[in-house]
């Protein structure tokens, strides 16, 4: 039987009883939450993990077929829930993880009490009247950039990442420097992320949710946050002062404040 906790490099911390599960976005791993979880450690049980293919997950568990849709990643989430026997949780998802969390919560709504979406988008590509922010050409441009930076990527990784099984302290040190996936997996995840369309799933969500929308985010523009809010039941929309797509990293204080405000409401 697969050890899910190992496969997804699941980390549990915090002093509370209710679980807050943090799902990282595309291109990173659970380290991106380090500033945010500080704000919740004393009140919640904090669960962070890496999707298969990201961070310190088991890369051998990656399957192009399973992860060819966001639903494959939603199964990762639900399997982590099952492994930890989590119920009555708050799921915080950044970027594409908002949609992954949404899919998981549609499948097993009983496990979730609230969802927090950070910079969500149900559809990145423009489509008729729908404004997602991207043209297909932009994505091709991005994929080319990812190809171009393959070498840059591997240089950004510690070259000694290979063969450290007998030196666990090296892996420990790397977790502080390492925020990249295998380039091929990154490419496939990018395609799944940017080409998926979850607009039809929005009305199916019954769990209450918060949309944290940055001002000036080119990945998830404000129109997209509004679209989310308009098509979700029981959704609260908060526009942040923070700019960019990663408020949890660029403006952790404001992000924590907004989340707490919603949770304590």
């Amino acid at each position: 039987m697969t050890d899910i906790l190992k496969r997804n490099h699941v980390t549990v911390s915090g002093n509370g009883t209710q679980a807050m599960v943090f799902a990282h976005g595309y291109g990173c791993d659970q380290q991106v939450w380090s500033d945010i979880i500080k704000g919740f450690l004393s009140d919640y049980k904090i669960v962070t993990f890496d999707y298969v293919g990201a961070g310190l997950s088991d890369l051998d568990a990656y399957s192009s077929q399973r992860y060819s849709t966001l639903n494959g990643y939603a199964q990762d989430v639900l399997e982590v829930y099952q492994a930890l026997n989590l119920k009555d949780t708050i799921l915080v998802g950044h970027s594409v993880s908002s949609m992954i969390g949404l899919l998981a919560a549609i499948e097993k709504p009983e496990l979730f009490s609230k969802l927090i979406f950070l910079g969500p988008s149900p559809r990145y590509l423009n489509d008729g009247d729908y404004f997602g922010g991207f043209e297909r050409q932009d994505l091709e441009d991005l994929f080319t950039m990812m190809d171009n930076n393959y070498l840059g990527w591997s240089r950004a990784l510690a070259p000694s990442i290979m063969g450290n099984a007998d030196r666990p302290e090296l892996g420990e040190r790397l977790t502080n420097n390492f925020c990249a996936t295998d380039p091929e997996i990154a490419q496939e995840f990018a395609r799944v992320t940017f080409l998926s369309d979850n607009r039809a799933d929005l009305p199916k969500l019954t769990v209450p949710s918060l949309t944290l929308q940055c001002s000036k985010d080119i990945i998830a523009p404000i129109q997209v946050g509004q679209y989310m809010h308009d098509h979700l039941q029981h959704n609260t929309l908060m526009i942040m002062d923070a700019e960019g797509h990663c408020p949890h990293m660029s403006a952790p204080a404001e992000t924590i404040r907004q989340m707490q405000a919603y949770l304590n409401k």
Partner: protein
Amino acid sequence: MNDAEHKAFLDSLVDLSSLYENAPCGYFSFTRTGQVIKINKTLLDWLGYEREQIVYALNFTDLISRGGKIYYEMFYFPLLQLQSAVNEINFDFIRKDGSRFPALVNSTVIRSSGGELLAVNATVYDITDRKRYESELLDAKKLADAERSRFEFLSDFIPDMIWTASAEGKLNYVNKRFRDFFELPDTSTDTANIFQKVHSKDRFLLVSSWVKAIRSGQDYQTQARLMDSTGDFQWYLVRAVAFRNRDGVIVKWMGSSTNINTHVTAMEKMDEFISVASHELKTPITALLGSLQVMQRFKDSESGLKMMPRLIEQSHRNAVKINELISDLLNTSNLKEGQMALNMARVNVAELLKLTCPHVAGEGVFELVITCDPELVVIADENRIDQVLVNFVNNAVKYAPDGEQIFLTAEVIDDDLVRIAVQDTGPGIASERISSVFDRYYRVSNAGHQYSGLGLGLYICAELVRKHGGNIGVDSQLGKGSTFWFTLPRAK
């Protein structure tokens, strides 16, 4: 001026601002939100902007492609946050006029005492040239790969085995056919496997002439028997020519191995035929000469005159034999060159069968049993078809001397075809030989039996029947006899 003052003076000569502005790479700094707060002249020139159009006016992301913006948000910025320094990220910068150039960006983070990211300092290298070389390299590689696969395709599907060897004679490439023949694993050109399949009698010549070619630089050519997958040896012509560089030095050998088994076998048969033909002709000529000598010596004596009729009869018989042999040879070469003309006419088959082979019928040793519809008519050259029948019947007499009856049968096998067969009650023909009996120079040779003849008779029959548009064949059972048959177009 003391030492310290002097150094301070020298330091004052270093114009940091000018160095910053005119460095061969771009410098710029931006805040956490991407707002550009300082930029050097080099980067401004590359981008085609005035300073005030950028500083405090534009964001880093305004200067890069759309894909770059996404990349910035999803990878670059999180990476900066986590690592505080990110090197060699390839962004496409957009100039004021909308054109692009690729650049590598190295970035380091300035943080507050609380660890908050305040600003990013970045250097920019224009890599337009490198990109061009890279893409040319990539194109060249693609071209080379395409050429290579085209060559391999050609080389693998050519009917010969193709190989190359180093100047020293070591095999370094073999095509698929070569690999398959010698059952070599994917990349190996191990000669041990190869030598096992060379006939032991040919190995020495193969290697010694190869060594000689390598030493002399002259073309390599030899023949050897190689064992195919069924374990049979087949003759191959093995050749190689030296490929020389501009200085005339041999850099490679290009070789081929061609199956010449059919050719070699035909040559062997031809040699054998010449020896058989010489022998066959020599026998009646020797006998003829003997008769003539006797005639000459005794022509004036009375007892000699008494011998004359017998000697003349002997001479005549041998001359007829020689004539038959030469006719066969002429027939063969005429047939081969397509010079034999047929006089086609309506021929009554029953009549033809009745009149054929008076020499056999007249002798009374064999009975020719004819079964034929008296009305049956074919389109044929009567003389040529008679020649075929004579051949068949003579064979029956020759190979089945103890039989008493030879059956001549003609029947309609479909509306348009008549099948004529000559059946003997002789020993029959072994099945593995049946397919060869109509070949040129083929002679049945049973152990203990030697039959005379050129081995041309049945070959000529087959050619004649084919010229009539018919088929020829033989059905035989060992111990029961053989049926030689042919078909002809039926006349209506």
